[in-house]
């Protein structure tokens, strides 16, 4: 940005995120957990607008945890081109080392982490950047795994007591890319969505629908970027306007 300033060049950033998934107390867990998992674990969590933390009402917390662990444990971890694999390794060593160190720090904390999934080729485990998908429970709202962008398959579950509390926590981040709300009541979901500081909010889905991909400006607020991609708005990033005014003679 500094380099661009000298010659007045425009810049466009689509940066990181720490997207919250907010589960409301009317949500059907059996229906939504598989969908949240898509957003949390697609590309082993290495997506800018992946779900990076999940907020669950206190009274549903244990149930959510148990159901999610059961499903995540079904992942088969293997090579990306192995047709029987449903979960692939991380992209590169730096990212792998970062996420592994994060896991070690979680283990030193009061939170509980469970590493799940089945190794398809245990003998080949060290021959790639393989990590188990993991769920972290009993985590503090301000703990590193909640506030950082992990960019890996480690998912913290945070218990909350009120809508006011969860909105405050969701916004308690330097990021503002995506976010999601999970509910049986669209109006209620919409109300919460409008309180979230983010460029995008998905209600009851992971990422954009077909129409959303065409219509939604993609990008974030705060430290998640400047400007938008996709949709007509995205095109405006790459143009200048030339206005022409003809004065008619009279």
């Amino acid at each position, binding site marked *: 940005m500094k380099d*661009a300033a000298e010659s007045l060049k425009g810049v466009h950033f689509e940066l990181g995120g720490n997207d919250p998934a907010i589960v409301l107390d009317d949500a059907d867990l059996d229906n939504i957990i598989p969908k949240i998992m898509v957003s949390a674990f697609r*590309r082993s969590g290495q997506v800018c607008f992946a779900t990076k933390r999940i907020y669950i009402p206190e009274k549903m917390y244990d149930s959510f945890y148990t159901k999610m662990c059961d499903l995540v444990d079904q992942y088969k971890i293997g090579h990306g081109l192995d047709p029987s694999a449903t979960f692939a390794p991380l992209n590169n060593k730096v*990212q792998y080392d970062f996420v592994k160190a994060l896991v070690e720090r979680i283990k030193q904390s009061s939170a509980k982490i469970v590493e799940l999934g089945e190794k398809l080729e245990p003998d080949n485990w060290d021959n790639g950047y393989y990590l188990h998908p993991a769920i972290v429970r009993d985590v503090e709202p301000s703990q590193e795994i909640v506030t950082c962008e992990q960019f890996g398959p480690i998912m913290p579950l945070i218990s909350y007591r009120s809508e006011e509390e969860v909105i405050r926590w969701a916004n308690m981040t330097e990021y503002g890319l995506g976010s999601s709300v999970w509910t049986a009541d669209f109006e209620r979901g919409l109300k919460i969505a409008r309180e979230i500081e983010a460029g995008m909010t998905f209600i009851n889905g992971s990422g954009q629908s077909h129409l959303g991909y065409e219509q939604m400006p*993609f990008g974030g607020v705060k430290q998640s970027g400047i400007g938008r991609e*996709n949709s007509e708005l995205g095109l405006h990033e790459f143009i200048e306007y030339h206005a022409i005014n003809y004065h008619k003679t*009279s």
Partner: protein
Amino acid sequence: MGQVAIGTVQHVEQAVNAAHQAFLSWRKSALEERLDVLSRIAKLLEDESQSLAETLSRENGVLLSTSLGEMNMAIHAVHATIKNAESFFNPKQAEDETSWVSVEKRPIGVIAGIVPWNAPMVLTIQKNRTGNRNRQHTRHEAFAECSDGRKYNYEKKSQPCSLPASSMLFTETGTSALP
């Protein structure tokens, strides 16, 4: 697994110059011509979808099904652009008894894009299609992995769009799981 040449500052300069030369004629081309190019790009992506997806998975380590999904998104992005091009293309005009105003869109020219390592195909297409659709600008894309690997560190540290080419460098693309 494969080899990738590492570019130099000179290579980047050459690429930007070539893009600028192409831009000079592209900016004068008609909408139909551009849409035709976009259609051909979509067709090529469709034809090569499987092999490109396999390459993406080899490079990135991701599941083949994820890479195929990424190819579909990229193709969809091009088709969506074709579908909506005309409405965006037209200038906004107003007129009264004494004057006439036209607000027209001009491309900003060659753009440097730095694409993260996680989904290089769809992220490149989302930017490139913009260039094609905006009538006139061409875009030069660099595939790069950050020196320290992490995406957000990379993007914060890296050079943003529209910088002088000399400030960009090609590096090796991502390596991940071994077969």
